[in-house]
Structures are given as C-alpha cells and as structure tokens.
C-alpha cells in the first residue's frame, strides 16, 4: 500500500513528477499541438478530463477484475482498450449533448487515444500501488501537469515566431531544447515535495 496523501500526489504530479517534463511521456501531441495557445488549452483540458476518468476506470478494472483473477499481466492491453473506447464514447456523448464543448475539445479527443501519457498514468498507478482516491488525484495532477507544460510551450512558441533561430536548430530541435530547459526549471521544485 502506498501511504502518500492524495493531496501530495496531486501537487507532486503537477510540479515535481510532471508526466511530461519528468517522465517525458506524451511528447508527440505536446510538440504537435503547441503551436497556438488556444489549441494547447483545448488539448490540455481534454487530456486532464480523459486522464482522471481513465485512471479511475482502469483502477476499478485492475483491482476488481484482474487482481482477483490473477491475470494482472493483461493490464497493458486492457488499459489501452478501455482508454480507446472511453475516448470514443466521450466524443460521441459530447458531440450530441454539448456542441459548444465539442467544438472546444471534441476534435482533440481522437488525438488523446494514442497519447502515451494517458496509458503511462494508468501504469504508474499500478506500479505505485495507489488506492482509488490516490489514483484519481494522480490522474488529475498528471493531466494538469500536461496542461501546464503544453501551455508554457505554446506561449513560448508564439513568441518564438519573432526570433531568429539558428538554421540547424529550427523545427523540432529547438523545441526539444526548450522542453529540456523547462524540465530543468521544474527540477527546482524537487525539494518541495517528494513522491514515490
């Protein structure tokens, strides 16, 4: 059992153990969708929502189906299936009942199905032996952490449009450098909270 309080997990997964900046998961959509602040905001909201829901769902699946039956090794493939199906369902639901929300975040949902940060959060939850509350807090923190990171990146990229980047560094290269620098600044939070 893991005894870290849920609140600590929440804050730690935003700052010290940021899923993107400490674990470098979800880089693909992080790089692809950070050209504009508005887009980054939409993706951040969608990732946070999906992460909270899927870690919770996967927790229930793991604790109440896989563990009792002794088939924990299936976690990987079943987590992916749950994530994909959930995202599909949410997309249809939102499209039907809240066109406004759909236009704000619906189009980002399909992107999230294949976002490894989402699967990563579910797998970390298993490895770190969280309970239900802790899992939900971790999912929420992980999502907000992704959101914060992609917003920072998008803000920088909007400004970067005016700067003269050396030719060999243009494109992904400079983005990776920037990500590294942001990750290092986040290491400044390391003394604040520690999480297993």
């Amino acid at each position, binding site marked *: 059992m893991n005894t870290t309080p849920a609140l600590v997990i929440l804050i730690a997964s935003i700052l010290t153990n940021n899923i993107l900046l400490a674990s470098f998961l979800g880089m693909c959509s992080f790089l692809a969708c950070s050209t*504009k602040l*508005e*887009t980054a905001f*939409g993706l951040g909201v969608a990732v946070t929502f999906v992460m909270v829901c899927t870690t919770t769902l996967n927790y229930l*699946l793991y604790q109440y*189906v*896989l563990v009792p*039956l*002794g*088939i924990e*090794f*299936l976690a990987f*493939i*079943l987590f992916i*299936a*749950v994530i994909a*199906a959930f995202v*599909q*369902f949410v997309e*249809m*639901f939102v*499209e*039907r009942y809240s*066109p406004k929300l759909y*236009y704000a975040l619906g*189009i980002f949902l399909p992107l999230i199905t294949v976002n490894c940060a989402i699967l990563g959060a579910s797998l970390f939850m298993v490895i770190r032996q969280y309970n239900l509350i802790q899992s939900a807090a971790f999912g929420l923190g992980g999502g907000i952490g992704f959101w914060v990171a992609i917003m920072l990146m998008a803000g920088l990229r909007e400004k970067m449009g005016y700067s003269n980047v050396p030719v060999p560094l243009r494109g992904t290269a400079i983005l990776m450098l920037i990500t590294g620098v942001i990750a290092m600044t986040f290491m400044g939070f390391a003394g604040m909270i520690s999480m297993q």
Partner: protein
Amino acid sequence: MTVFLAIGVTTGLFLLLAAVLLLAERRLVNYGNCPVSVNDGDVAFDQPGGTTLLVALHDHKIFIPSACGGKGTCGYCKVTVLSGGGPVLPTETPYLSRGEIRAGVRLACQVKVKEAISLTIPEALLNAREYRARVRSVRSLTHDIKEINLDLIEPTDFVQHPGQYVQILVPSPEGPVFRAYSISSPAHETNVAQLHVRLVPGGIASTYLHALSEGEHVHFTGPFGDFRLSEDPETEIICVGGGCGMAPIANIIASLYTRWPERSCYLFFGCRTTRDVFYLDRWQAYTKRYPNFKFVYALSDPLQTDETWDGETGFIHQVIEKRLKPGVARQAFLCGPPPMIEAVTEVLTGKGVPPGSIFHDAF
C-alpha cells in the same frame, strides 16, 4: 487455465466495450436526414447526418478539390457555408484568412453535416466531373520526371482551361486518396490529358503514377483551378517554372499560340543541373514558328566538370530581373517551389506587374 481465463477476460471486455460503443452510436449519433442546398438551390439533396460535407458533396457528384483526401492538411476544399455548419474549428483556422472566416468560408472536409446546410461553391466546380482514362503512353522527361498521356474513356472528352489541374485517384492501403496534377496537354485536345509527374521518394501518388504502364486505367476528377488567360492580344504572357513546374506552362503556351499566333510570350524555366532540363527542343521549334515567343532556361547549381551549358546560370528570379523590361502590360503564371514563387513575385511586382495579374501554383 490462466490462458483461458486471460482469453476469456480479454474477449469479454472487448465485446462489452464494442457493445457499449455500438449502443452509444445508435442512440447518440443519429441526426436523421439533413437537407443540403448548394448555390441557392441549384443542387439540393438530403444527406444522412454524421458524414463530412466533403463526402456528402462527393456522393452527389460535386467534386471539391482536396489533395489530402479530407485530413485537413491541404486547405483546398474551401466552400462558403451560409448556414448550418457550426463554428470554425481549430483544425481549419490555419488555412483561412480573417476575411474568409468572416465570409463563412470553411474546409468542407472538417464540416460535419448535422443540420440543414446551405452553401455556395464557385460555379466552375459544378462542372467538375469524374473521369476514367486509359494510359496511352509514358515517357521519361528527366531522371525523375515522367510524362504520362491519358486517353479519356468515360466521358470521352472534357473542357479545360490552360493552367487548370485534375485530381488523380490513387489507391493506398488507407483507402483512396486524391493528388492534384496540372494538365500539360493543350486545351483544344479535349480527349486527352497529359500529366508531368516527378517521383517523390516515398510519395504515394508519384510512386503509383510512375509504376503505371500502357493500357492501365486511371480515375480522376476535375478540372479545377481558376486561372484564366488574358483575352487582350496586347498583354504579354510571362510563364515562370521551376523543377517539374512545366506542366501548366506547356498547356498555357500551346493553347496561347493555337489561338493567337502573334501573341508575345516569355518563358523562364529554372533547373538545378543539366539533368533536369527537358522540352528544350520543343521551345526552340516554337521560336522558329512564332516570332514573339522567347524563352530562357537557367541552371541554379554550379556546373560540374562533365556538364556543358551555354544558357543562363543562377536563380530564375535573377534572370528575370536582368532580362525583363518594365512597363509592359503583362499577365504572369508561376509554377514551382514556394521560395521561387515568392522571389519571382517580388521581381515581377518590381517590374510593374500588378499582383492581381500574377497567378501561381506552389508545390
């Protein structure tokens, strides 16, 4: 034992998820039939909701150009939606100017039909049709460009304006995709379509087209494009091409001289090396036959020791800067890579060609 359990649980969960999704789809994604009205009711039909506007129009034989096949990455499938398209999506904004957004211009591949939609498209697009053609011959122009001649089968002829392009249907593992190619055969040859195809390593369409052999069938839609040759015989036509951008230009020049043998026309063509040069003999024959036709090829790469070249060197916009006298009424058509288009547009504007008379095809 564990194996069976694992298989059972996996299958069970997958079935459960599939059932939930199917049920959700049946319940949630059902918009009924949505009336679609094109150009003030010129074409009207009912479309089962849920598909994209691009697919809906395609199903009713209205062919909107789309080079990316509906992925929202080319920005060709613009239509003006007057009502019922929902707000502009973030996937569309990179391809739309502020003015276009205000006018209601949308990418047809991103608009989903969910309610009654009324839209307008350029009249010419209503004339675009679907064609089936047979490959008559394939000829290599350079080491990587092939000239492909197609005989139209169904329908047997078409009306094209020089500078227009067709969209070739290319089979691919992820379903058919469309790629745009300019028509290089002159407009008066109404039962053939000739294309120039440069082999792009890894390119779906160019690989497919380069592998075609005589007698094979090809499908395409078109013609698309809104370039119109100036009807004023005093207007000089400037054609600037680079790389494999000869196709629309060959069509423009051939059509021009069929109609007005006295018109003056200046062709500039930029290549990298002598390996990329083609059609030189054709234009030499033209200069003999038509006194007001001039052309110049320029090589941008430094000459290798084994190459001989007595023409111009340097970038094509530098050659234009040097050769073209300012102050003549002109219409210009450019076809080549975007940096070339940009540089040439600047030079031509400097020579007094109004921006509205400069047309281009960037690729």
